[in-house]
């Protein structure tokens, strides 16, 4: 990066570390920041530092939060007998957008991936198990519908079912608004398996 002035090269280098940002995008972002006002640059920098310093994990559900316990865990309006298990905190944001689920969450921070050295011990599973008191009537497993997510779901079911708690898995559905002939055969057979009465 000899063609850049040193401070600029450093900014480009830092931006490149972000997910989904290649050298070209990093360069564009860097020039945008340099070209903007000093206030904007300060505001961006302090937002980054502020978020990093004030945000931590909820000690109950391991969601990202600025207060502990997080707002879901202390909300009396939510159903505290149901826990929905997700891989990442960002999955909560997506589920909340549906406005369908009113229970509590638990973030595992990943999924079982033996070939990458991630086993149950690397995830927040023990913490989930310690939340499964008599009050809990159902655990909904909303891990990703890929091999790692399925492995995690099956593993959790083995742990939780002996406690007499209902364990459910989100259905594998057909993409809404899609065209049947473009759906792959595995999704299709899963959707057939999970069909419902009309």
């Amino acid at each position: 990066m000899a063609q850049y002035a040193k401070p600029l090269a450093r900014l480009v280098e830092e931006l490149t570390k972000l997910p989904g940002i290649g050298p070209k995008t990093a360069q564009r972002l860097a020039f945008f920041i340099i070209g903007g006002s000093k206030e904007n640059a300060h505001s961006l920098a302090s937002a980054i530092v502020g978020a990093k310093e004030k945000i931590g994990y909820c000690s109950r559900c391991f969601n990202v939060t600025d207060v502990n316990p997080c707002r879901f865990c202390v909300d009396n309006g939510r159903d505290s007998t149901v826990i929905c298990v997700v891989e990442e905190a960002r999955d909560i944001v997506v589920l909340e957008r549906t406005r369908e689920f009113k229970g509590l969450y638990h973030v595992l921070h990943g999924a079982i991936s033996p070939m990458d050295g991630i086993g149950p011990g690397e995830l927040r599973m023990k913490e989930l198990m310690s939340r499964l008191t008599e009050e809990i009537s159902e655990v909904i497993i909303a891990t990703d519908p890929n091999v790692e997510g399925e492995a995690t779901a099956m593993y959790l079911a083995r742990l939780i079912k002996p406690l007499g708690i209902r364990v459910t898995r989100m259905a594998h559905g057909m993409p809404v608004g899609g065209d049947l002939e473009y759906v792959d055969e595995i999704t299709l057979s899963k959707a057939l398996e999970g069909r419902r009465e009309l």
Partner: protein
Amino acid sequence: MYKTDGVVLRTRNLGEADKIVTVYTKTKGKVVAVARGARRIRNRLLSSTQMFTHGRYLFFDGKTLDTLCQGEIVLSFQPLRDDLDKMAYAMYLCELVDVFVEEGEPSPEIFVLLINSLKMVNEGQVLLALRRFELRLMKCLGYHPEMHHCISCGTEPEAIIYFSKEGGIVCSHCKPQFSTTHIVSRGTWELTKRLLDWEWSRISILHPSAFSLVEIEHCMRDYIDYRLDRPLRSLGFLQTLKQF
């Protein structure tokens, strides 16, 4: 550009939406390739690049990595992903191929061995599939365990047979020279020779005892570890599942 049948041994995430897939192909051996967009919900590569899938794949040659650009499922092996135990066993088979085989060393024999073994696990004949796979894979790789003569003195074994982690049987006279050995019963000895030499069509008539399969498991575990320089990750996972 090349088109070949293959089995997906392993996948890793790359960036936001891509995958790096390790495919054991029929004609090119092990191939590591990028599957662009293969994690997007409506991508055509989504289901054909899942672990264990047997598919017909189209690759483009690249400078560092090839690109997997089309995939058509031949056998989805979905039950292997729907059952935690089968999944762990299938991962073990795939990991063995991945760690022992280098890129660019095709072996149609290993390809057929892998497909047939996954089918057997799929159908629930797990332990026989695993033991046969371990023995035959070693044979295909040129690490054929010596089952006829003592690997130290070359005599045919008499009453008691031992198996050394160095890859063959040892007689009772030579046993003290070997650090790790397992005693092998007569029945296990016969079974091992059949698993090494018999073709698939004949394997189905075998009804081995659980005891013999365990004896072979111990022998092969030591032998495989002796040939490898690092522990197998799938074994750790299989161990975790034993608690249930």
